């Protein structure tokens, strides 16, 4: 007798996922890192307005929940002195030119949190920064938004008595 077929879950319709994405909520979460409204609108589109729908839904859930934790902990804004790592706009490989710096997205990576993962391993911050900021923009920018929240949350937690 063949094993019963177990559905992990019913596949959600793309339109159903699109309906639960709250652009205003995501914009509010990003605001401390992206004070300019036009840039924020651009980034919200990058993260939940473009790319495969499952990515949009997943990125929204992760960032919105991290934003919720940050709000409950009273994390309001990132420290002003943190320059962060820029997220490049990737050119098609045949257009890359040595020495020509790419344009960057208006959201920088606060990589502080990555140091907690080092455990004595040199270079982990650089290696993971490269992993987080590579790939298609919707992917890289969702990574950066989430990591910024996690870094801020960690700082807040560690500052508690």
């Amino acid at each position: 007798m063949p094993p019963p077929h177990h559905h992990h879950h019913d596949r959600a319709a793309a339109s159903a996922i699109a309906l639960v994405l709250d652009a205003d909520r995501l914009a509010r979460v990003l605001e401390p890192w992206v004070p300019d409204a036009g840039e924020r609108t651009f980034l919200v589109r990058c993260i939940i307005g473009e790319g495969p729908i499952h990515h949009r839904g997943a990125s929204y859930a992760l960032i919105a929940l991290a934003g919720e934790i940050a709000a409950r902990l009273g994390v309001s804004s990132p420290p002003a002195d943190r320059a962060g790592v820029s997220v490049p706009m990737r050119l098609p490989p045949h257009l890359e030119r040595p020495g020509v710096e790419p344009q960057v997205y208006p959201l920088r990576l606060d990589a502080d949190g990555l140091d907690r993962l080092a455990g004595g391993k040199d270079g982990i911050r650089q290696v993971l920064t490269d992993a987080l900021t590579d790939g298609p923009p919707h992917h890289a920018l969702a990574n950066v938004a989430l990591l910024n929240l996690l870094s801020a949350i960690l700082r807040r937690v560690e500052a508690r008595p």
Partner: protein
Amino acid sequence: MTSVTLPLGLAQAFRTAAGELGHAGAAEVFVNEIAADRGDDGVAAFRDILGRDFPVADALAGRWLEGWRPGIIETDHIRRHLDGIRRLVVVGLESRHLDALVDAVPSLEIALLAWSALPADWDRVIANCGGRVTAVDLDGIFGWAGPNSAVLCFVYGSADGGTVYAPPGWLRLHGPDMRLQFRALIGWNVLPAPFAVYPRWFHEVQVSDFTAMEDA
């Protein structure tokens, strides 16, 4: 059919004009001149001769016969979408609209995708823009990308069904690699009216492909 005769070579002349002025811009010039010389019967004849081949000219001539006349090109509603934008890539060509935009936003750097289905002398097209517009090819567009860059595409047709008609340059340029390298993707609908004939030269695209859509 009307009894008015129009000059031989009209279609050839219109084709050249549409390539370098835009379908709507050329249609305005031709309809204006024909109406002045031959009246509404001349415009109707123009439509009969060219309409099936040039759908924008057909629609524009149809509107003319209903009493519509070309007016001043308003740009305020487009400028609202250009807040914080320093560089603009224009896709498709409507020279009157492009001229109006060039005048309205002196600080804006503008590039024009020098590629279209109709043949055009792009040096001549660019020379008409008073040194304010640079020609780019499909690869060159990425050099204009950035967080303070936008794309503006001239589109046509009624958007009631959630779609409009865009020039093929938009299809070549519009993809996941490009969309996220520009802050805004603006559609400027220069002829927001239904087509009465098959809109050859253009392709139906979703209004939602654009971050903003404005009627002329």
